[in-house]
């Protein structure tokens, strides 16, 4: 590589290349400007300053660079005319001169620079007053890095000081040639190979990298900066520890940052990015240029380790990393296949600048303000030494991922964490939250004290019954009880229960279906002073036996039909035997400490646990709800939840304490959306409860549409944000999300999920009255906002415990460490606090959903499935396959053809969120409580997983490549399908290229499309022996389908390749074989055809050689369409039968003849388009082959790795096709054309399907909402495939009835200058 300056300059260094391509992809981003200003106070010698800056800028050659996108790739030239000159701006007249200067500087910094067009640097001096100046420097990152900026600035200061003293400054800054020579030497060196090997080994078993916020780490156009000063005592401790441990203090800070980040991510290890100056031991040490690299630093969590050991291990890793610090992280990213915006090499950046960077101007006081150090992809912690021993922590955060408040919170929290870490023996001892955050969490967010009468539920119900005796209390199937009747019947039954021995401290079991009797029974039990125990008779006898055996109720209230099952355990009172008149004996009165009910929940061990809830707890819950939601006598509240599920408690008793109407739904109605919708309308229900999965089913019921209620409550499961939004589109009602376990009296938190709520995810919200929510870490310390922890509940609503199980009670109900004498309950849920105090539920502590290292919102996948309109209901779960890999499984109800749904999802979801398995069910299984019964979901069959492992050498090789190309966690099985595993056609190309490298041959794209499994491709590889084709042969099979159906022949567009039809081929239903015709001239030894008719005749011959009889279906996009019409003409001339002739936005040659000659770069644009880039959006990219190939390689496109021969072939064919099209004159085709028009394109141009009128029988036009260039993309394919499928079927149908023959087609080409391939 030439290092000597010549007229064409030099190639970019490795360090520059990464930035160059990043800027090319985001040309409008101004953050590639680095910049700073220095405020100078004192008597500035302006002449000396101007001279110093001029000289320093002359020495810093990089400032005069220009980048040209030359044919062989980007190059840089020195252009002295582009060197910045000091510009002096007088702002002394402004009211606030500093503010005026800063505003001007901010505007300047916010202007993006095009390195091919604009000067890279600016030097400006603002005069604020006679003794006050601001010197601004703005330099594109391609020309400089942070350390280079210091060199340049200090050099200017040295020159200034020397001139003032009349001495000479030190030696000049070395020239750029030193940097270029070192870069060139390193590129070809053994050292680079050794470095590469080091990094590959270090990152073997690639960690899952997460940061402090989810989302794509792609720099916005600005960033938040929040800073704190580290106090002197902490700095002194830091230096002390550095001396004691012989670890440089900057490395100590980096290690503490790693521990801090780990606290937030909760992952077993974290990867930080550590900027590396790359100058030690380099001849380029003093050159102001871009040399900086970012080293990824892996730090594993080491629970229980001493601080000293932790610090030593991180310091060792840093030292090793720096030894290999020249190896570019951009290259490592490519080595590790960390492709695409979401895949991270590292999380937060930690940049420690251990010396004061302020230049020393003699006689002047200088203050440095660093404005930007380049793009902020995620979050950067900068520690900046300043003044005499000061240290500032600056947090720069990407505003797309963090709020300014979050940035400030991190600055304060990290500061406190470091101070704590310096005082601790073990880092485990250091809390994550600051004392202020802990106080806010424990005290302010839980300030829920509220006066509630200290009475029993019995007393509240009795008071309401007395208040409005004539008002309706309960309605059931058209029968109504007034409060007076309820009072009389419940008192009578209570007497009978008392007679049977029930009272405080005893239990009465209730085993009745929903009915008036059920309500009477519950009220009666409470009035007898006993606690009620609901039983579900659908449970197996064995379970009932266990519950009754442990609970030992005095009496069971049940129907005669069920009495037999219960008599062995207790006296059964059947409704027919209940007294109707009040007896003589006085009822025993419970007190607030007594139990009100006992509800059994399933234990994780399978043994049901009876939760004993006291009157005081449930009274708090009901009184909160009554007052908070304004529940009064006008309310009609539906009771539809089984009594064994604690939500039923408020459904039963909230109306009865508020004097409202309790509408009892018929038995089983709770599972029947239609019955519920009818009931709601008939009974004018105002308030209802739904478990979210049941709500989803209910909203899908047409009868539910337009219902009006006052309020709907959700609890029991996570409320997905999409369901909330669907709710408000479907019904008119308030929606409230409640959360709580049975162990804390139904619900402990609430969140209004109204139509204006945009929260994602929907929080479980704020604590109810007299209740505390704690989110604690493993050491029982409160977490700061946003950091996940274990959710603990405390306050008046806690249950007494588990009936007869003091051991279990002690395990889950612990002493509250924050409120002496109180208890707290371990919920087993993970959650975090939002900054506003709302709690967000994250899931059970035993499962977390991550797919391929990315957080996945399953609700989003559910929403995509529902939006497809193909499913009536669905549930998406994360499940582990046989190999232990987490996979997404979607269970769908009401889907006619799962294959169609599977085809559609990739268009709606990022690939990693597309379910690995779609399982069609008749209905989703639900538990007795109406919750989705996850345990009852059938195990999915993962495509191939758990299948036969690869056996033959070829299978093993192919399996390893599948894994590599697709980034799979595990090796696929022999039956695994490349496309089902998530492969797309570009990855297919990459796979074959890798196969060719590994095996010396590949069986071609056609073989992969035809048999896309590991075994299939391996078989083809073996069969093919040493013959290497490459997916470039003239006829390739894109899909194999029903042999009874005539195949479709798809003819390549301008680029000569037909890979682009792969998606369409796979989307056709029913599946038929699809063949792609590709330009023979892709092969270097094949001449270009003399005219288009010759080519069409060649294609016709190949088609007939493959299949001797018609009908022949033809399709072509763009140039392919012109060819399709010509092939149709040729086939008809031979007397063959032609089927459908489909043109994808192809216009006849006549439209192109008069167009100007296409630019020579059309073929390169075609290449870019194949790779998925819009060439018109890459204005700065030179359209030379080298430049385009370099770009494709840098953006990790498999096309960038196409062989030179293949690329030459494409370039040649594009040019050749253009010539063929212009010279072609269409013959008439005696059949119809099916024309798919790119309806969003061609504005202002006279391109219409009607241009074909003279060359076909007639034209059927199908409008596709797409641009021409996107017609074979996923989106357009979703519309084209069904329409094309229908046309093919109709054609074959009409052929059976009449005789059709010749189909249609007089094709026409489309714009040959368009880039599509």
């Amino acid at each position: 590589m030439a290092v000597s300056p010549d007229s064409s300059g030099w190639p970019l260094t490795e360090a520059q290349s990464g930035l160059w391509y990043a800027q090319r992809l985001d040309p409008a981003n101004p953050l590639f400007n680095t910049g700073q200003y220095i405020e100078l106070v004192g008597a500035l010698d302006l002449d000396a300053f101007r001279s110093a800056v001029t000289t320093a800028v002359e020495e810093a050659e990089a400032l005069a660079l220009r980048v040209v996108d030359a044919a062989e790739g980007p190059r840089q030239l020195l252009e002295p005319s582009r060197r910045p000159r000091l510009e002096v701006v007088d702002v002394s007249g402004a009211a606030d001169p500093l503010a005026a200067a800063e505003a001007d500087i901010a505007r300047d910094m916010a202007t993006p620079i095009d390195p091919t067009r604009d000067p890279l640097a600016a030097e400006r001096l603002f005069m604020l007053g006679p003794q006050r100046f601001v010197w601004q420097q703005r330099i594109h990152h391609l020309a400089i890095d942070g350390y280079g900026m210091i060199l340049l600035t200090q050099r200017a200061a040295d020159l200034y000081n020397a001139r003032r003293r009349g001495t000479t400054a030190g030696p000049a800054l070395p020239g750029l040639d030193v940097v270029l020579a070192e870069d060139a030497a390193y590129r070809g060196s053994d050292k680079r190979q050794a470095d590469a090997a080091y990094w590959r080994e270090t990152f073997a078993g690639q960690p899952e990298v997460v940061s402090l916020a989810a989302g794509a780490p792609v720099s916005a156009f600005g960033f938040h900066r929040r800073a704190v000063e580290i106090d002197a005592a902490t700095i002194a401790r830091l230096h002390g520890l550095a001396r004691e441990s012989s670890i440089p203090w900057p490395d100590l800070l980096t290690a503490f940052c790693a521990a801090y980040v780990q606290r937030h991510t909760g992952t077993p290890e974290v990867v930080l990015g550590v900027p590396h100056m790359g100058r030690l031991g380099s001849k380029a040490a003093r050159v102001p240029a871009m040399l900086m690299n970012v080293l990824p630093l892996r730090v594993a969590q080491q629970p229980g380790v001493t601080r000293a050991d932790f610090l030593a291990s991180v310091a060792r890793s840093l030292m090793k990393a720096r030894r290999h610090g020249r190896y570019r992280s951009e290259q490592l990213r490519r080595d590790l296949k960390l492709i695409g915006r979401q895949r991270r090499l590292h999380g937060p950046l930690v940049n420690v600048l251990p010396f004061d960077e302020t230049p020393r101007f003699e006689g002047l006081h200088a203050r440095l303000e660093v404005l930007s150090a380049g793009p902020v992809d995620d979050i950067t912690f900068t520690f900046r030494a300043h003044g005499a021993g000061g240290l500032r922590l600056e947090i720069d955060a990407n505003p797309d991922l963090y709020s300014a408040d979050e940035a400030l919170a991190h600055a304060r929290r990290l500061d406190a964490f470091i101070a704590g870490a310096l005082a601790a023996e073990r880092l485990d001892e250091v809390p994550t939250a600051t004392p202020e955050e802990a106080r806010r969490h424990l005290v302010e967010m839980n300030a829920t004290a509220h006066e509630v009468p200290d009475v029993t539920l019995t007393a509240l119900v009795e008071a309401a019954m007395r208040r409005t005796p004539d008002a309706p209390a309960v309605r059931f199937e058209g029968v109504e009880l007034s409060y007076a009747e309820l009072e009389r019947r419940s008192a009578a039954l209570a007497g009978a229960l008392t007679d049977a021995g029930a009272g405080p401290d005893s239990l009465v079991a209730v085993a009745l279906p929903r009915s008036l009797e059920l309500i009477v029974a519950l009220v009666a039990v409470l009035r007898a002073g006993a606690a009620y125990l609901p039983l579900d008779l659908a449970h197996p006898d064995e379970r009932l036996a266990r519950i009754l055996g442990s609970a030992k109720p005095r009496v069971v209230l049940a129907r005669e039909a069920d009495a037999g099952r219960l008599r062995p355990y207790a006296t059964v009172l059947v409704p027919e035997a209940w007294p109707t008149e009040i007896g003589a004996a006085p009822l025993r009165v419970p007190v607030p400490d007594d139990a009100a009910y006992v509800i059994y929940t399933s234990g994780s061990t399978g043994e049901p646990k009876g939760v004993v809830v006291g009157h005081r707890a449930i009274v708090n819950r009901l009184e909160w709800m009554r007052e908070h939601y304004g529940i009064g006598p006008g309310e009609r509240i539906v009771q539809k939840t089984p009594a064994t599920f604690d939500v039923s408690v408020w459904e039963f008793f909230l109306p009865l304490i508020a004097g409202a109407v309790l509408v009892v739904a018929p038995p089983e109605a709770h599972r029947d959306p239609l019955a519920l919708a009818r009931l709601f309308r008939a009974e004018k229900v105002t308030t209802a409860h739904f478990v979210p999965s049941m709500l989803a089913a209910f909203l899908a019921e047409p009868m539910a549409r337009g219902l009006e209620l006052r309020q709907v409550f959700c609890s029991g499961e996570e409320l997905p944000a999409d369901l909330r939004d669907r709710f408000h589109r479907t019904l008119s009602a308030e929606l409230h999300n409640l959360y709580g376990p049975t162990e804390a009296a139904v619900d402990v938190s609430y969140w209004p999920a109204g139509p204006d709520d945009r929260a994602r995810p929907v929080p479980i919200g704020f604590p109810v009255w007299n209740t505390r929510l704690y989110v604690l870490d493993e050491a029982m310390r409160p977490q700061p906002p946003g950091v996940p922890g274990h959710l603990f509940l405390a306050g008046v609503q806690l249950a007494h415990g588990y009936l007869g199980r003091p051991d279990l009670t002690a395990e889950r109900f612990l002493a509250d460490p924050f409120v002496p004498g109180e208890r707290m309950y371990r919920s087993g849920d993970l959650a975090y606090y939002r900054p506003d105090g709302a709690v967000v539920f994250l899931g059970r502590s035993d499962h977390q959903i991550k797919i391929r290292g990315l957080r996945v919102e399953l609700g989003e996948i559910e929403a995509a499935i529902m939006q497809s309109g193909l499913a009536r209901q669905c549930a998406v779960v994360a499940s582990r396959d046989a190999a232990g890999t987490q996979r997404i499984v979607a269970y769908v109800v009401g889907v006619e053809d799962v294959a169609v749904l599977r085809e559609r999802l990739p268009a709606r979801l990022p690939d990693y969120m597309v379910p690995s398995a779609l399982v069609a069910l008749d209905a989703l299984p639900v538990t007795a409580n109406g919750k989705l019964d996850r345990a009852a979901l059938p195990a999915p069959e993962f495509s191939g997983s758990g299948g036969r492992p690869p056996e033959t050498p070829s299978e093993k090789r192919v399996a390893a490549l599948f894994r590599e190309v697709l980034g799979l966690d595990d090796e696929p099985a022999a039956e695994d399908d490349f496309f089902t595993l998530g492969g797309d056609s570009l990855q297919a190309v990459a796979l074959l290229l890798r196969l060719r490298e590994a095996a010396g041959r590949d069986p071609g794209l056609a073989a992969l499309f035809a048999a896309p499994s590991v075994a299939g491709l391996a078989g083809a590889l073996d069969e093919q022996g040493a013959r290497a084709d490459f997916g470039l042969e003239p006829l390739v099979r894109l899909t194999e389908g029903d042999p009874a159906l005539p195949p479709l022949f798809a003819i390549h567009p301008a680029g000569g390749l037909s890979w682009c039809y792969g998606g369409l081929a796979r989307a056709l239903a029913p599946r038929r074989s699809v063949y792609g015709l590709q330009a023979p001239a892709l092969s270097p030894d094949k001449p270009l055809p003399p005219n288009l008719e010759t080519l069409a005749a060649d294609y016709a011959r190949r088609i007939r050689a493959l299949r001797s009889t018609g009908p022949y279906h033809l399709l072509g996009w763009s140039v392919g369409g012109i060819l399709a019409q010509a092939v149709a003409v040729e086939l008809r001339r031979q007397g063959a039968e032609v089927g459908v002739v489909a043109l994808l936005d192809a216009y006849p040659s006549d439209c192109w003849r008069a167009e100007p000659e296409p630019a020579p770069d059309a073929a390169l644009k075609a290449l870019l388009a194949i790779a998925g880039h819009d060439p018109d959006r890459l204005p700065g990219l030179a359209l030379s082959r080298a430049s385009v190939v370099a770009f494709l390689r840098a953006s990790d496109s498999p096309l960038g790795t196409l062989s030179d021969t293949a690329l030459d072939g494409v370039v040649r064919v594009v040019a050749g096709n253009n010539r063929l099209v212009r010279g072609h004159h269409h013959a008439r085709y005696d059949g119809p054309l099916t024309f798919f028009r790119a309806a969003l394109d061609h504005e202002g141009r006279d391109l219409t399907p009607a241009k074909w009128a003279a060359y076909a029988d007639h034209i059927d036009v199908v409008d596709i909402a797409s641009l021409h260039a996107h017609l074979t993309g996923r989106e357009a394919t979703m519309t084209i495939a069904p329409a094309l499928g229908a046309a093919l079927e109709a054609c074959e149908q009409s052929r059976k009835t009449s005789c059709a023959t010749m189909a249609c087609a007089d094709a026409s080409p489309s714009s040959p200058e368009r880039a599509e391939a």
Partner: protein
Amino acid sequence: MIDPTEIRRLAEPRESLTMDGMRRDIAAMLHEDPSEIGEADSLLDLGLDSMRAMNLVLGWSEGGLDLEFSEFAEDPTLAGWWTIVARQQAQRG
């Protein structure tokens, strides 16, 4: 207003640096015996990294010497570093 950097400059210089003193400092930073640090040895080969080098330079400048890290970075050997320090000490007189 007094520039903080001036304070550093005005501070009483500590004892002058010596080549052996620097050798000891380097050895301590690398957890090596001073006898292992040859004058012409590349300190990089001995395991020195940029943060440690910067730390050493910062420490040596605490006595009031005006040391530029970039000069040290150009030639990371004990001999090279001593040349820079000796020159600065001579200038300061």
